């Protein structure tokens, strides 16, 4: 089992990476390689050129500016999990990332690469959509645009990155004071891909929920924001009944063949349960912080 031959490029600047990506049709970014290399070894993909961005200067930064945390394209999942900035400001990202594979894989895998891969069974797209993450996307000519998570994820394994383009970072808003985050996934094993996962962040002001962000992945081909659940929660007192009632409103069209491990009927059935557990975990975190 070996990848087909490819041309290997290792640019050190963003400009050179874009040139390499545009040099041949089908050139592909190599970030952590934890999703791409298996595809190459199984010969499910055989791009003519791989552009290794791991040594591109400036992409490995984790910074906090104007109330957002910015995660560069080569920042490893393990780096985010070990970072005090993330622990303090991105509780939902941390809660989800601990479910993404094993430490040995997170040591290489990047947050941005994981989102660009957009496996429908992946956890992080739910977080990105729930928190209104923003992607900095460069076109082949270097023009930068900011793409909201709601517009970033297309059909499964598709994202809004133009041919020859590159994502340089993703940013998440800092969790406001009084926030609790919860993540729940239905999976066969801990740290395996999810059958269905739910992400929730609740912000409480004066005993009432002032902001609620809830989204799921695994139901269909793209992450889904749970608007009706959020609407029901906003303004409510944070009680067990309120969480349960809101979770019951979780609905969405389940697509049959998102993965081979569960049916649409099963995922529709567990949807409100998963949302409820994520909400309960968020409430428990609020309780702990008090």
């Amino acid at each position, binding site marked *: *089992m*070996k*990848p*087909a*031959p*490819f*041309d*290997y490029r*290792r640019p050190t600047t963003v400009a050179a990476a874009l040139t390499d990506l545009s040099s041949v049709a089908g050139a592909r970014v*190599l970030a952590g*390689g*934890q999703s791409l*290399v*298996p595809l*190459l*070894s*199984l010969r499910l993909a055989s791009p003519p050129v*791989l552009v*290794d961005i*791991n040594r591109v200067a400036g992409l490995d930064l984790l910074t906090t500016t104007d109330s957002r945390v910015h995660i560069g394209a080569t920042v490893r999942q393990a780096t985010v999990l070990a970072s005090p900035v993330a622990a303090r400001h991105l509780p939902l990202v941390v809660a989800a990332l601990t479910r993404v*594979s*094993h*430490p*040995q*894989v997170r*040591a*290489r895998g990047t947050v941005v690469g994981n989102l660009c891969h957009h496996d429908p069974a992946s956890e992080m797209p739910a977080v990105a959509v729930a928190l209104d993450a923003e992607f900095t996307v460069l076109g082949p000519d270097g023009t930068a645009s900011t793409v909201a998570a709601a517009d970033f994820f297309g059909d499964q394994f598709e994202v809004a990155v133009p041919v020859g383009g590159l994502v340089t970072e993703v940013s998440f808003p800092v969790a406001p004071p009084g926030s609790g985050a919860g993540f729940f996934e239905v999976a066969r094993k*801990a*740290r395996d891909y999810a059958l269905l996962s739910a992400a929730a962040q609740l912000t409480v002001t004066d005993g009432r929920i002032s902001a609620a962000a809830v989204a799921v992945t695994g139901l269909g081909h793209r992450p889904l924001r749970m608007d009706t659940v959020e609407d029901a929660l906003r303004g409510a007192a944070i009680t067990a009944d309120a969480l349960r009632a809101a979770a019951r409103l979780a609905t969405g069209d389940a697509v049959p063949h998102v993965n081979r491990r569960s049916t649409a009927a099963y995922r529709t059935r567990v949807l409100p349960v998963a949302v409820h557990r994520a909400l309960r975990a968020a409430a428990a975190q609020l309780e702990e912080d008090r």
Partner: protein
Amino acid sequence: MTQTTPRQPAPALHVVQVTVNGEPRDAAVPARTLLSDFLRDTLGLTGTHVGCGHGTCGACTVLLDGVAVRSCLLFAVQTDGCSITTIEGISPDGTLTPVQQAFQDNHGMQCGFCTPGFVCSLTALLAEDPAPTDQRLTETLDGHLCRCTGYQNIVKAARQAAGREALS
């Protein structure tokens, strides 16, 4: 390699210079050479085992600049300039390290195929955190598959290596 048809030109070779188990090594290999194959076939270090070849089993785990990673998910050319430790170099003086000793004491292996990976991962974890929580230990072990032991003795070995009582 059998799939390479004669029509294709020979792939370009990349010089890879790395420090493996403390010694400088270099070789010219095609870009598609996985680090696992580079270690085993090019350098003859067959202690790194390849189970699944696509990231699932952890048998191929080595230390890359001190961090436990899967060598089947990296191309050798990507590690140019880096330092790699394989199971052959895990004990600098050739005597059993505390992790290796713990595997022996607790009968933490049967066929031994998975063992180099487990030992490399635990060595990296304990270097970074000499007293990890049980949760961290399990999380690290979880990155490896063993088809023989049923894991109980591996958990015991890991707890001993972390300086804790083995759970009976």
